[in-house]
Structures are given as structure tokens and as C-alpha cells.
């Protein structure tokens, strides 16, 4: 791995200047490396982080196939990584004009990394630097503890998709302090609703009284309001004080809970395990936002490489070359999902919405197709609108909010179905639906989504760790349950239980009875199978797995 030459670096600096002028915001330092095939071989198992810790699985072919992104929620071939400074990787034989295009794309990503709030927890440190010191820690431990270090890494990685990413985000992005007092919140949100159980009309009356009160002198309002409350509910003040004293409950993820509560890890001789758990948890947290913003991130980068490239005077004469490469990247496939193409079209669509003022109650309410088509308030606020979106949304919120029928119709999108034609023994792809709701459903279902598994504190007793899988319509992959639980039991040092939901039986739609002499019945349109679900508890004790029905 070596740095790009001075000539190419100058091109990059020129790109940065143009990007800043257009409103992108990112730190001015960045590192660009030339990578060879050999470098990529070493980098890709380490998810392009050159300083990541060593682990034997990195040297082995890992079983791939369906579901691999649920297991490895990080892109093994990222061109740019979210470090400080950001590092990006290039082929050594790219022509200058192509480098310009890639530089703009990379800058789009860097801007996204450094501004999107889902990356908030990665902003305050350099991951590559910390990874290097972690790598040294693990290497040192390995020289002392031998293969047991690898077992711990393995078991810790086994739960790295359950890391408390959103908990971490909400700790870093606390809601803005409210203008009114906590006493008011407590009175309306908890006291009236949960303790007094007042009915709706009385509740509204109280709100009305509070609003009336505020119309007068604001400083005195609250006291005046609560003097009346005191008179009516003498117990209110005592309850309120008690409420304030209660510490806000912090939700711990599985790592944190094990670290804090495991008797096994509390032992002196097992302290070294804590540092490994810490490293694996931090690494998992670091990679979480990437996969949750894939479409936005690629769309944003593609939007900007296209916009900035075409306005760059240095590459005159290469428009055709650019068009060819760019089409390959951002064309919508006839069948398939291309995150670059989809994300970029979304951003163009939203920019237009912002420019024409379509993101407004006035427009959304209007169902007249002609009015909707010609609607234009000439606000010219599109750029600001998409900058705002890139800061605040993730793939799910982005698509769930903005992927509407106008977008689907405009881009000729549809859900493609695949069915078996038994007579000709071919898979037929067909246009299944052009409804935005179906398209949205299809794409949301293909987004990364780890199972929601939490510690059940009420059922965790006598040293047993009780995990509850909140069922969301999909069962867990059974083959992976034993080894994952084995790992948790090892780290926890005591029995572990997992409550989950499984299929008892599924009834295939009744097939028509066959009549001798006639051709076999062809399959009808797909029907939902009737599935019977059953709640079960797995118990891992002394490395033995048992299952019982609830």
C-alpha cells in the first residue's frame, strides 16, 4: 500500500475545494492509497481497516450465501473508511478523469460519514488508531493465553449483531432540553395518566387550565397552576420528589450486562476477557451505521459525483467516458436493486420536491393529479432540504418517509415477481405490482435487520441469564442457535436461556387431487401458508442444549 502520487493528490485537493464550494462539509485531511490485488486480499477480511486485530477466521473462506449480510453487516470492499483522517483506496492504473469521478464519490461518502447523525459515535476518535492499539492488546494476550483468546473473540463476535447501537446513539444525541419544567411533564405524562387514571375529558380540562394559566404572567403561571394541584392532590409533591430521585434506567446491551453482572468475569483470573469484549463491542458499534445507511450513502455519493463531475472544468473532453462509467454505476437494472441508482434518484426527486415546495401540507393534501404535476412554489430550497435529509435519516426512515407513488411512477419502478413455470422448467420474472406500498414493503424487507433480543431481568434469576427474542414474524436460524448460546454461556459462566418462537407446522395450501390421465395441476398464484407458531425456550447448561415448549 502506498500513497497516491503528488500529481493525483493535487487533483484530489482540487476536488475538495469544489465540493466545499457546493456546501459539502468534511475535515480537510484525507489519505489516499493505491492498493494491489494482494493488499485487497489482506484488507477485505479486515473490512478494509488495515489495523484491525488478527483473528484466524479472517484466513478462512467463510461460508457465504443467503443471509451473509445479516452475519457480516459490514462491506468487505469499502472504497473509503470512516477514520480520521478518512482513508480511501484506488487502483493504480485509473486515468485522471476517472479518479476525479471517484474522488467526488469518495468525498460524498466522507461528507456523509461526518454529518449523518447515525455516525455520531464515530466522530470523536480515529478508529484506525484505536484499532491498532487494540490489535496490540490482543496480540499480547494471545502470547499469554494462547488459543483461549480466540475462543473469547469467537464468542464475543457471536453476539456482535445484538450490540446496543441505538442505545449508544440516544446517549450521544440526547433530546433537546424542554422549555417547560419537569414538574409539568411529570404531572401530565405520569401522574394524571398512570397514577390517577383520569379520563380523557378531565385530562383535556387540565390542559386547558394550564394553557389559560400560561396566557397570564408566564413566570408565575406554573406556581399558580400547581397551587391548585396541591390543593386537589396533596400527595403530588411527595410522589414527584420520589420520581426525581429515581435514577433513570440505563438499558444495557448484552455485552455491558455480562461485563457488569457475570460472576465468571468478575474473577481476577478472567479480567483479561473484559478487554477483548470491549474491543469486539466497539468494533461492532463502529460498523453498525454503514449498513443502515447503504442506500442513502451510495445515493448521496452518486448524486454528488454526478453533479460535481459535470461542473468540473478540468475534465473537459471526457464526458463520454464519464457517461459510460456513470451509467454502469447508476442505471436502474431491469430486475434487481441497485442502491446507487435508487438512492441517487431519491435525492434528485427530493431536491425537486424541495425546490417546488412539494414537501408541504398544502401539496400532500391535494389529490388532484394535474395540480400535483404542475405544483411549483419556486422555493428553490431543494439543496437545503436534501442536506437536511442526509444529516438526519437512515435507510429505513428515508425510504419509509419518502418513497411514494410519485417516485415509483416517475421512475417506472415495479416489484418483480419470480415464479416457476413447470411446463417449460423456467423461472419467469414478471411485473408483480406497481404500487408504491408494495415496492416499499419489498425494499424495507430486504434491509438489514438483526433479531430483537433482550435480557429479561424478571426471569433472570439464580444466576441464569434469560434472553427473550421479540418475535417479528421470522424465526431464528436454528442451526446457529447452539453455538451462539454456547458462547454466551462461556462468557456468562452460568446457564443461559433463550425464549423464541418457532414453527410447529406449516400447512401447504391444499393441492388438487390428481386425476389419472390428466396433467398434474399447475400451481396457482402463491398463497400464504398457514403457519402455527410456538413459543419455546432453549437452555444451554454445561455446553448441553435442551429445548422445551412453553
Amino acid at each position, binding site marked *: 500500500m502506498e500513497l497516491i502520487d503528488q500529481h493525483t493528490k493535487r487533483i484530489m485537493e482540487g476536488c475538495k475545494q469544489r465540493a466545499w464550494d457546493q456546501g459539502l462539509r468534511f475535515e480537510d485531511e484525507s489519505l489516499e492509497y493505491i492498493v494491489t*490485488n494482494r493488499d*485487497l486480499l489482506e484488507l*477485505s477480511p479486515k473490512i478494509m481497516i488495515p489495523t484491525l486485530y488478527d483473528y484466524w477466521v479472517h484466513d478462512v*473462506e467463510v*461460508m457465504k450465501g*443467503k*443471509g451473509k449480510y*445479516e452475519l457480516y453487516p459490514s462491506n468487505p*470492499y*469499502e*472504497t*473509503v473508511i470512516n477514520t480520521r483522517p478518512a482513508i480511501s483506496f*484506488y*487502483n493504480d492504473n*485509473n486515468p485522471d478523469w476517472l479518479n476525479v469521478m*471517484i474522488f467526488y*464519490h469518495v468525498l460524498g461518502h466522507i461528507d456523509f460519514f461526518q454529518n449523518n447523525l447515525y455516525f455520531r459515535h464515530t466522530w470523536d476518535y480515529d478508529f484506525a488508531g484505536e484499532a491498532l492499539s487494540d490489535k496490540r492488546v490482543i496480540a499480547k494476550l494471545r502470547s499469554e493465553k494462547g*488459543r483461549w483468546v480466540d*475462543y473469547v473473540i469467537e464468542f464475543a463476535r457471536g453476539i456482535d449483531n445484538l450490540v446496543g447501537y441505538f442505545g449508544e446513539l440516544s446517549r450521544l444525541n440526547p433530546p433537546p432540553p424542554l422549555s417547560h419544567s419537569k414538574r409539568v411533564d411529570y404531572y401530565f405524562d405520569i401522574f394524571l395518566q398512570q397514577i390517577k387514571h383520569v379520563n380523557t375529558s378531565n385530562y383535556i380540562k387540565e390542559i386547558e387550565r394550564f394553557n389559560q394559566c400560561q396566557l397570564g404572567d408566564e413566570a408565575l403561571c406554573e406556581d399558580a397552576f400547581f397551587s391548585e394541584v396541591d390543593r386537589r392532590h396533596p400527595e403530588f409533591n411527595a410522589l414527584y420528589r420520589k420520581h426525581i430521585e429515581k435514577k433513570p434506567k440505563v438499558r444495557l446491551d448484552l455485552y455491558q450486562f455480562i461485563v457488569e453482572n457475570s460472576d465468571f468475569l468478575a474473577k481476577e483470573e478472567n479480567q483479561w476477557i473484559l478487554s477483548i469484549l470491549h474491543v469486539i463491542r466497539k468494533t461492532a458499534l463502529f460498523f453498525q451505521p454503514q449498513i443502515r445507511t447503504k442506500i442513502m450513502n*451510495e445515493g448521496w455519493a452518486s448524486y454528488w459525483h454526478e453533479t460535481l463531475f459535470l461542473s468540473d472544468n478540468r475534465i473537459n473532453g471526457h464526458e463520454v467516458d464519464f457517461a459510460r*462509467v456513470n451509467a454502469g454505476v447508476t442505471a436502474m*437494472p*431491469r*430486475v*434487481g*436493486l441497485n442502491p*446507487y441508482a*435508487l438512492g441517487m434518484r431519491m435525492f434528485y426527486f427530493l431536491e425537486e420536491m424541495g425546490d417546488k415546495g412539494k414537501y408541504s401540507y398544502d401539496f400532500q393534501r391535494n389529490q388532484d393529479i394535474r395540480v400535483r404535476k404542475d405544483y411549483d412554489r419556486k422555493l428553490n430550497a431543494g439543496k437545503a432540504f436534501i442536506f437536511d435529509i442526509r444529516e438526519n435519516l437512515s435507510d429505513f426512515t428515508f425510504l419509509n418517509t419518502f418513497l411514494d407513488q410519485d417516485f415509483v411512477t416517475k*421512475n*417506472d419502478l*415495479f*416489484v*418483480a*415477481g419470480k415464479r*416457476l413455470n413447470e411446463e417449460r422448467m423456467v*423461472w*419467469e*420474472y*414478471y*411485473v*408483480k405490482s406497481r404500487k408504491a406500498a*408494495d415496492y416499499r414493503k*419489498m425494499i424495507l*424487507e*430486504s434491509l*438489514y435487520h*438483526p*433479531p430483537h433480543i433482550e435480557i429479561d431481568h424478571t426471569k433472570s434469576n439464580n444466576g441464569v441469564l434469560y434472553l427473550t427474542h421479540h418475535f417479528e414474524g*421470522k424465526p431464528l*436460524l*436454528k442451526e446457529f*442457535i447452539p*453455538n*451462539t448460546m*454456547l458462547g454466551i454461556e462461556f462468557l456468562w459462566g452460568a446457564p443461559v436461556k433463550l425464549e423464541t418462537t418457532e414453527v410447529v407446522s406449516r400447512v*401447504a395450501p391444499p393441492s388438487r387431487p*390428481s386425476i*389419472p390421465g390428466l396433467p398434474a395441476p399447475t400451481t396457482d398464484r402463491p*398463497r400464504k401458508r398457514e403457519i402455527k407458531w410456538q413459543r419455546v425456550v432453549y437452555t444451554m447448561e454445561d*455446553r448441553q442444549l435442551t429445548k422445551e415448549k412453553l
Partner: protein
Amino acid sequence: MKRELQKRFDALLQAGLDPQRAARLRRELMGPQDHGDPVPAQETPVDPTLALADLGIYDYHDLLALQDNPEPKASYANRIRSIDELLERDKLRAKDGFPRKIRLGRMIKPGKTGQGKVVVVPSTTEEKFIHDPNFSEEEEEQGAGGSGQGEEGEVIGEQPVRPEQQGGGGPGQGEGGEHEMESSAYDLGKILTEQFELPNLKDKGKKRSLTRYTYDLTDKNPGFGQVLDKKATLRRIVETNISLGNIAGQPAERSIDPSTFLISPQDKIYRILSREKDYESQAMVFFVRDYSGSMAGKCTELVVAQHVLIYSWLSYQYANQVESRFVLHDTSAKEVPDFAAYYNLKVAGGTQVSSAYRLVNEIVETESLANDYNIYVFHGTDGDDWDTEGKEAIPELKKILAYASRVGITVVQHGSTSTTKSEVERYVAKSDLLESASTTLRMDVMQEDSDESRIIEGIRNLISE
């Protein structure tokens, strides 16, 4: 064909069938009856509209999209170094009380030309709690995205159903192909023998020699010998006389007078009896696979994977001197020329085990293989047989047992029928052959969801002394 099957099915029905089995047989009967083309359908061009259909959102990455840089390929040399290390590590795992993690996944790379081309991919999985990716509430696969013209319901492209998706179960075809490490079957056999502690073949009595000698009149010798080689002798005489000047100039201008030729004793070329090294093929392995309709999916995968491993193990044991024959059967049996066909033909039709055994007997008889070879027969099936009592299969099996060194029957049980024994299991057990011919006949029954260690365990059962 189908009518005949229907007749047999009706007869079976009348004789009384348990409902589960009846349903299974009916499925076989109603299913496709055609095993397709042995050539993998990959050769048919892919519809360009569908080229990207299988790529998901997360399959795209910048290096490929922008820089046209495909996933890097690891070289064979890089990987071979690590396999011994990995297996060593795996042994230690077992010692420490954790399940083994290294699998020799995706082992078959059927080439059209070379049988026995085996690809060893040491692979592993990192288990986590994840949603079952194969689960779907609907019968049809989840839709993909699409764009462009077309009314709802309109078919926009089609793709042939690949045979290996249904039958051969080609695990991992087309994915990660570039990463694969190639090794010969011999290497895999070595790994199996050494690392997985499969038994070595015991030499019975005396050491087997890998070579034998035959004596034949192949060598040429001037001056003396058993038989005069007239053509070679004449050529030598002409050469000698050219150099003496007895034959000169253009033969067309002047007639040649052979009476003037001088003949030296050394010009007479004789054939002489000589010792010829002749490599003996020591083992002939018949791989027999049930490719009836009920074998769809995991069953076939297991059987084929096991057969590859057995083949590799025998290759190692017999120092590559293994010949193999491939027999497939549904209600009738046929021999296919190479592993590719054996591997790729998809499942269809009913089941008649005896047909396969009969074919093996025929081949052995007509080619009189029994004298020259150690014969092994390995048969993989799900245990279903329309010949419920084994009335035809057992006599044929007895015939095989008369000459074979080992017959190994692998029965892969369907999950749903695990409580009851399958037909093959039942009639083989009933025939007492497992006891009376315990040195030659072995049967191994495994579940449909068995993993690789179970497959290897199965091989141990089948081949142990």
C-alpha cells in the same frame, strides 16, 4: 412410463400404505419424470434483463462499481499452507470441549473432462442469532425490484431452472467460485485419513504391489531374438546399402538390383520377449445414486458429498489407482460416463432400487471385472423403494456381495419419517445380510439435516473393517 408407474402405485395402494408414504409416492408420481440434460444449463446464455436480478442492495460495492475491481482472488499456494494449521486448531477445539468449526465445504467441482476433480474449501461459519434467511410466509420467493415498461402481470424475462438447483444440489455453484482452492482428490483423501482419522485400508496377508509385470514381444533387438521383424529388417538393409552406395541416384532412372545388397547380421531385427511394467487398477468403485423425485434437496447433497469423500479416500488408499463407475437409478438404472453427469442430473421419477443393483451386476459380469479388481459399491438413497419387500433388490444385493469387497448403503432419512424405518432399511435388516455378510455389507442411516462431521462419521461406518 408414467402409466406404468401409475399402475404400480395403484397396486401398492391396494396392498396398503401408510398415509405419509403414500403421499410421498404420489408426489414422486406426479412430479417431473425427466432427469433433464446432464450438461449443466449454465451454458445457456443468461437473459440480459436478468443479469443483475440476483444482486441485493448489499452486494454492490464501490470497488466493483466504480473501479471495476472484482473480488480479489486468493492463490492456491496461499491457502494450502493454512489447511493443516486449521485442522490442527480444530483438533484442539475438540479437546477443549467445543464443537469443531472447520468444514471442508463445497467439495465438488465436476469438470466435463476430469472426473475426480475435487475442490477443497476449508470453510467455517460464525454463528450468530439471525433471522432464518430461507423462511418465507409465502410460497413464492420474495420479489425483487424492477424498473422499466410492462403491465402488471406481464412476463419480462425468464431463466432456465438449473438442474443443480433441483437435483445435484450443486452446493455453492457460481458463488465464490474464484476463491476456491483446488486440490486433487488424493490430497483430500490424505486429509480425511490423517485429520479425520478415517481408518487405513488394511492389507490382508501380503503387501499389495501396485505394479505387476507382463512379458510381451515388444522390444526390438538386432542380431538375435525370438521373431524376425521383417519390416524393420528391410528398412535396416536399405539404410545400410544406401550408405554403401549400392542404392544411389533417382530410383526411377535406374532399376535397383536387390541381389547386390549386402546384409550384415546386425541388420536382422528381432522381436525379443521383455518384461513390461503394467499398472494394475486396484479398485473399481461403483457409485450408485438414487435420483428419484423424493431425493430432492438436502438428501442428494448429502449423498453426493459423501460419495466425493469416499472417492477421495479410496484414491489416497490406492495411490490414485481407482476407477470409478457411476450409476443412477429411479425406477430404472443407467450408467453415466463421468462425475459431472452423476452430479448434475436432477431428481425425478419413482424409485426401484433393484434396477441399480441389477445394472451393477450386469456390468461386472459382462466386463468380468470381478477377477481383476477390488470392487466397491456405494449406494446413496433416501430409503424409499416402491419395491416394498425388497423382493427383487435382495437377490441382486446378494449377488453383489459375492464379489464385492465392500458394499456401503447410505440411507438419508427425511425428517418427517424419522420415526419409522424406511423400506430399504427394513428389508435389508430383515434379510439378515447385515449379520451374515457383516464384513462386506454396511449400512449407515443419517438424518437429512446432518452436517459434515456426520457425513465423515458415516464414511467411517461404511468403510471400517
